[in-house]
């Protein structure tokens, strides 16, 4: 029977190709749609969380709830070696984060000040990659790098001096004047509006927080699962420190993703309805075309059930072929848009930037999506093929031969 089905497929190549093509495009549509959705999130998490904040952070206990310098980690008295040498940890990156009021001329603006050591930082804060003007700094320099948004707001350029007024460790006055050494474009739009980067040692001095860090970002080894590393760290850490995963640090990102994913699922469901009818159309067409053939086969003595099984097998082979081809064909598309994301422009771009997302559409290359949607479409295909079975079972050979 399999042989019969196989022969039938090759007997009418045109029809087979149409069925395969229908299934293939359905798979491609569904997969591309989901790939973009998942890909945008994947990319956002990678860019914003992975490259800027890190998947894991170490703080003094209580810091995340009350982000005050008073709850910073004293690096001279806290032993972080067990954390640094834990499995899967590449290095710990100290940062001193606080707020300051910036002055230039008669303009003022609140800013997020981050004291960093650029040599050890995460990719998102590798200054030479994000600078659009000027130069990076080393830990002994006393220049700052401001985000593009701040530079635009203050209408300042390289060499201009910004004044800082803030509060340091235990309420000490935190004043400073630093010339701008560079202007950087941050991938995170929110940071791009208000971030000032300065050498860690200078930030520590200004905030009267020598040898202190508010955050130790955990850089994990490539290809390591951050959750596993987090579990190890939680076991090794001392009581005074807390290890937080990005999901705890930024629960709002998770919520946004969930809402968006739910919306995406509704959309995909609608797509599946459309796909079902497209496939049903091809099956109806196939049955109509072969009315005469079916009629002859039944009248020369082929059992209806055998005929139905053969037809079913044909369909399964075609649909499976279509799904597999679809899954394969979509792969290069996924890869292409992962590395060449669609740049949004105009109003769409502004709308998305308001939500602090990068206005670019990426795809994911995760094969699970292809497999999921290939399978779903395969099932839909099999389901609609039952129409052919039903048609065959109630076939009237004489009438069908006349048609």
């Amino acid at each position, binding site marked *: 029977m399999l042989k019969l089905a196989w022969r039938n497929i090759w007997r009418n190549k045109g029809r087979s190709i149409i069925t395969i093509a229908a299934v293939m495009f359905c798979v491609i549509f569904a997969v591309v749609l989901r790939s973009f959705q998942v890909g945008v999130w994947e990319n956002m998490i990678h860019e914003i969380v992975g490259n800027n904040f890190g998947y894991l952070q170490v703080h003094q206990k209580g810091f995340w709830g009350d982000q005050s310098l008073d709850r910073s980690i004293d690096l001279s008295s806290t032993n972080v070696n067990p954390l640094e040498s834990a499995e899967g940890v590449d290095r710990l990156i100290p940062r001193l984060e606080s707020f300051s009021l910036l002055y230039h001329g008669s303009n003022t603006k609140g800013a997020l000040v981050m004291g960093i050591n650029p040599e050890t930082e995460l990719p998102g804060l590798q200054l030479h990659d994000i600078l659009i003007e000027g130069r990076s700094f080393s830990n002994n320099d006393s220049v700052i790098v401001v985000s593009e948004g701040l530079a635009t707001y203050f209408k300042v350029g390289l060499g201009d001096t910004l*004044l*800082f007024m803030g*509060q340091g460790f235990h*309420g*000490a006055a935190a*004043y*400073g004047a630093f010339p701008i050494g560079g202007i950087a474009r941050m991938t995170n739009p929110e940071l791009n509006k208000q971030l000032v980067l300065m050498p860690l040692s200078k930030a520590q*001095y200004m905030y009267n927080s020598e040898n202190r860090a508010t955050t130790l970002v955990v850089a994990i080894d490539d290809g390591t699962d951050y959750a596993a590393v987090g579990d190890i760290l939680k076991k090794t850490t001392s009581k005074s420190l807390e290890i937080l995963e990005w999901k705890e640090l930024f629960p709002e990102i998770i919520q946004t993703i969930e809402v968006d994913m739910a919306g995406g699922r509704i959309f995909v469901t609608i797509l599946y309805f459309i796909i079902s009818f497209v496939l049903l159309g091809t099956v109806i067409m196939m049955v109509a075309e072969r009315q005469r053939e079916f009629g002859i086969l039944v009248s020369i003595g082929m059992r209806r059930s055998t005929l139905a099984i053969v037809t079913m097998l044909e369909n399964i082979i075609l649909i499976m072929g279509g799904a597999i081809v679809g899954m394969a064909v979509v792969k290069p598309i996924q890869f292409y848009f992962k590395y060449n994301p669609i740049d949004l422009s105009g109003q769409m771009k502004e709308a998305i930037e308001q939500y602090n997302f990068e206005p670019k559409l990426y795809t994911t290359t995760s094969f699970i999506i292809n497999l999921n949607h290939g399978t779903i479409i395969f099932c839909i295909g099999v389901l609609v093929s039952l129409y052919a079975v039903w048609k065959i079972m109630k076939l009237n050979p004489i009438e069908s031969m006349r048609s």
Partner: protein
Amino acid sequence: MKRVLLLLLLFFHSSLFAQDAVSILKKSEAYLRGAQSTAEMSITTVRPSWERTMTAKLWNKGTEMSCILITGPKRDAGTVFMKNGEDIWNFVPAIKKLIALPAALVQNWMGTDISNDALINAGSLTVDYTPSVIGSKVISGQDCWVLELLPKPDAPVVWGKVIAFIDKASYVQLGGEFYDEDNFLITEMQASELTQFDGRKLPKIIKMIPSEDTESYTIIRYESVDFTTPIPDSFFTKSNIKNVK
């Protein structure tokens, strides 16, 4: 007739009493301040696992003019706070900037437990508050008046009520309690170690204790006070703020 006399007596008595409270407070402040004074002090802020000491120089003239210069540590040295009448300025050498401060600042001064108000408006309680004697109390062996100070209407003050303990013999204020407008105790002040400074007996140590945290406090320790060297009015001007030494 008797009743009228009694009423009159009561009236005079209470007004005399009020008069008394004002003069006690005025005497106390005048004693503390002198015509003018120059003082050197250290200010230590203590927190459960941390402490910090600053050194400062303080100038005072009359009730309207005062100036404080931070002399250490190095990162804060050169910072000046100056009051002249209604104007309060803060000069920050790190940014070479003069900042005008509001008359009533609620925040604490440079991370200490001293309110900006207490520092800058020190010795001018009579200007903004109406005092009345509400009793007597013995504090570190000295018999003291207990004065309740309520802010005058529209006075630019931060406290809802101040209780001052003033030594009956020397007019030195030995303690104080500062309440907010809801009558909650915010900060307590304790003065101790009465020492001779330029001919006047004054507390060497003043301790400010915020009521919310028992392990935190700030100690002001007077190293020297000079009541004799005259200070010109021009010292307390905006243009002089960068030259204060």
